[in-house]
């Protein structure tokens, strides 16, 4: 059908496209490509790398993520503590307890090396993206704040064949 239509001069086809666009935007049936941000929120892909969540119990402060981070933006301090023996009469075992675990999101480039390298499942990605601050200092999230992000971690979704 396309080549049947007499070829309109170039600029008229351009105007025709614009006119159809205008009716498409005004008609309530066609999907609206824009998201009216402050009022409607965009649904982000579950795998989106928004922010890193920390599970404090799982973290044994093994410092792997701090060493692998290319931007040097993870700061960890921990100390060892004696644990009550698991079996009665067993030896008291020492366990490393986390004092400080800060991620400086002003430096972080969201590459995800720390989440991949962590052998104890302490770090997860969450598609949360609304944590901007007015001054750069607040971009340093301490471990309690990172723990709050844990609630927004999406569960593992289905995969293609």
């Amino acid at each position: 059908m396309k080549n049947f239509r007499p070829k309109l001069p170039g600029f008229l086809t351009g105007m025709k496209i614009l006119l159809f666009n205008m009716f498409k935007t005004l008609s309530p049936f066609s999907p609206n490509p824009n998201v009216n941000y402050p009022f409607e929120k965009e649904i982000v892909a579950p795998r989106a790398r928004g922010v890193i969540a920390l599970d404090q119990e799982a973290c044994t402060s093994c410092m792997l993520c701090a060493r692998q981070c290319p931007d040097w933006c993870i700061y960890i301090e921990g100390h060892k503590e004696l644990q009550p023996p698991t079996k009665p009469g067993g030896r008291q075992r020492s366990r490393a307890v986390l004092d400080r675990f800060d991620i400086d999101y002003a430096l972080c480039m969201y590459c995800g090396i720390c989440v991949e390298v962590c052998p104890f499942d302490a770090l997860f990605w969450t598609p949360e993206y609304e944590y901007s601050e007015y001054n750069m200092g607040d971009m340093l999230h301490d471990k309690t704040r990172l723990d709050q992000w844990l609630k927004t971690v999406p569960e593992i979704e289905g995969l293609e064949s």
Partner: protein
Amino acid sequence: MIDGSEILVKAGIVLAFALNGAVIFTILDVKGASWMQRRPGPLHVGLRGFIFPLAEIIKFFQKEDITPKNVDTAVFKWAPAYVLASVFGLFVVVPISPTLVGSDLDLGVFYLLAISSLSTLGVLTAGWSSANKYSLMGGIRAAGQLIAYELPLILSVVGVVIQAETMSLVGIVEKQIEWGLPFAISGQGIAFIIFMIAATAEMMRVPFDMPIGESELVSGFLTEYSGVRFLIFYIAEYMNMFIMCAIASTLFLGGYHVPLLPVEWVNFYGPVVLITKTFLLGFILVLVRWSFPRFREDQLQNLAWKILIPLSLLNILITSIMKVVF
């Protein structure tokens, strides 16, 4: 003896009519553009964004009006005034209905074309005086373009004047009522197209917006202006668009008359008809603005001198021959 109050009242009406026209055409341009580009356009101002020109006017009033240091201050400060004056002057003559007109000069068309060439002066002085290489280039480009497109503008109107045998705008519309058909259909079709192209060039709208070519000259002669002076340029641009569409519909599309409607009530439906015609032309200009790229200035000059002027001369020739024959 003309008493002062009548003039004041008329000036007030013309001012209100012009400002409203500019505001409505800003809405048409910006909202129309956003719908054409699949986006909602200004939304949060009020009434779903339709009173945003009001917000702009207030915004520009509270903005600081900077006059850069080594600028030729006197000329720099008065440049917007020339452009606004030239556009205001045009409103006097356009008839909304046979009685509702600023003053029905019998040299109407001659007055129109004389006043409209004053804006070239304003644009050139703005570009020249704001001591910035980009505005200088914008100003000189504007001068070249506006002068080049004065000629086709005038020559295309000469055809209409010959056919209507009068220069007064009300007379031209009466002639079209008498002929039954607006001039654009009866004989002046080419002149209408030439007039519209030349008017777009006068308004420096997109296919001809070399002087404010944002991607090259940042914003041409407007670069150094801010605050109220930029607002004056901004409103003058849209007022110019409104009045050019009004003149085009008066000269070519039958002014305040539609062929089928009875002539007696012309005083009542006259303004509505003229406004709708102006809106139609305005919408076409908006459509053209958002679908065309920009001419290079030597192509622009070629278009004016090598195509539009010969065509309009040809049109005058044909009209005068037809005048003699009928």
